């Protein structure tokens, strides 16, 4: 009863469960693929490619898979695009609802735990088939660092040190980050390293899209730092992408 006051998810579940995301049929939705997260001195960056596929068809070239969860944290979801967008919206509302009711925001660990229970309640079936996998990162103002959390199908979450990648191109992206990411690097270097990782994932994974210079479609890049969440404007991502490509 008391929990319904602070949790939007529990409120919806009790009054109108039909509007919650449903996992059945997730395999029919277009799939989004690689998302990377990496920390830097003073924050954390998360970047996602723009491709969504349905089987061998490219369903969308400019899909967005990385979002601000609130003003200090970001969430990315690889897998069935429709379900991913719904889960992000539910999570954003959950955080904001808590903050308005309690008149104070959840701690970063509290948010990561909450996402774990949403995953457990909604996604365990879908995640077993790897249909949807979230990654969460944010600025922790109690210890002044950027932190990254990954999830499994049980809703269990693990704090990743340095960097992490999810989705079909994750193995290639992680291999790339392992070489280019260094603890304490600058924000711009971390963004370049994340873009490089997405490029490497797209190089070897058909379901991940590389930067599309002809159409001017570049990865979505968000940072979370002491100044809050910031989505890098397209021209800034384009400039860093060009530098990454030139350096190869």
């Amino acid at each position, binding site marked *: 009863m008391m929990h319904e006051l602070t949790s939007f998810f529990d409120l919806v579940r009790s009054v*109108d469960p039909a509007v919650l995301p449903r996992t059945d049929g997730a395999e029919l939705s277009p799939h989004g693929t690689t998302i990377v997260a990496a920390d830097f001195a003073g924050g954390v960056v998360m970047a996602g490619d723009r491709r969504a596929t349905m089987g061998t068809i490219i369903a969308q070239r400019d899909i967005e898979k990385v979002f601000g969860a609130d003003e200090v944290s970001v969430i990315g979801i690889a897998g069935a695009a429709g379900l991913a967008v719904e889960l992000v919206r539910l999570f954003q509302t959950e955080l904001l*609802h808590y903050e*308005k009711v309690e008149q104070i925001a959840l701690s970063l660990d509290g948010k990561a735990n909450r996402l774990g229970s949403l995953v457990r309640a909604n996604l365990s079936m879908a995640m077993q088939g790897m249909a949807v996998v979230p990654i969460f990162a944010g600025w922790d103002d109690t210890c002044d660092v950027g932190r990254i959390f990954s999830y499994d199908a049980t809703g269990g979450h693990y704090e990743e040190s340095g960097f992490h990648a999810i989705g079909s191109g994750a193995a290639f992206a992680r291999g790339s980050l392992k070489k280019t990411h260094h603890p304490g690097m600058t924000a711009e270097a971390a963004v370049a390293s994340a873009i490089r990782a997405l490029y490497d994932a797209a190089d070897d994974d058909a379901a991940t899209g590389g930067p599309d210079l002809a159409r001017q479609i570049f990865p979505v890049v968000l940072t979370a730092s002491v100044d809050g969440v910031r989505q890098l404007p397209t021209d800034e991502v384009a400039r860093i992408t060009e530098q990454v490509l030139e350096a190869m």
Partner: protein
Amino acid sequence: MSLYVSPDQLMSDRAEFARKGIAKGRSVVVASCAEGVVFIAENPSPLLHKVSEIYDRIGFAAVGRYAEFESLRISGIQYADLRGYTYDRRDVTARGLANQYARTLSAAFAASSDKPFEVELAVAGLGFEPETDELFTISFDGTVSDHRTACVLGARTESISTGLTGLQVDMDLRTTIASIRSLLDSGTPVEVALLDRHSARTRCFRRLDLSAMGEGES
């Protein structure tokens, strides 16, 4: 054995009961100005708020019993978040919320088994222009009123609203705050918040620190 009480007598007793509870309270003023909608509440407590955020462009103010308006505040947030999640963020309106509150308060007032709410609420919706701001007050019996420029809740409403007639929607924030404060009890600390018309964020509600604005003492 039950005694007969006429419905007239019953309702006026209930109204009298609620009114006494509210008039003991302090005053809250909500007003439109160039920068947005400003809320000023006489409130000695820095932690127990009378003014709060409900949604992106909707604010809430209340007087009366804290426990009662706190639960109404939470039910307002639930209404707004549920509606915004089911439809879209733009589909959450101050008018819809005011009507929802009116329904709750009038039902409690009419139900003879319940005690009427001893609260008075204000709901403000921020417009893109001062002329499109929406200000509503909802009284203990569920009566809704809409207001141009400004409204007042709580104690001494008569004298304060006379003073509020001088406000204009295109006045700047500083002037608006100063003229409202001149009408309130100068010995009580005030809680001030703004629905910021020029906010770059989706959430336009923010609390203001008057001492930081150089208007701590007046």
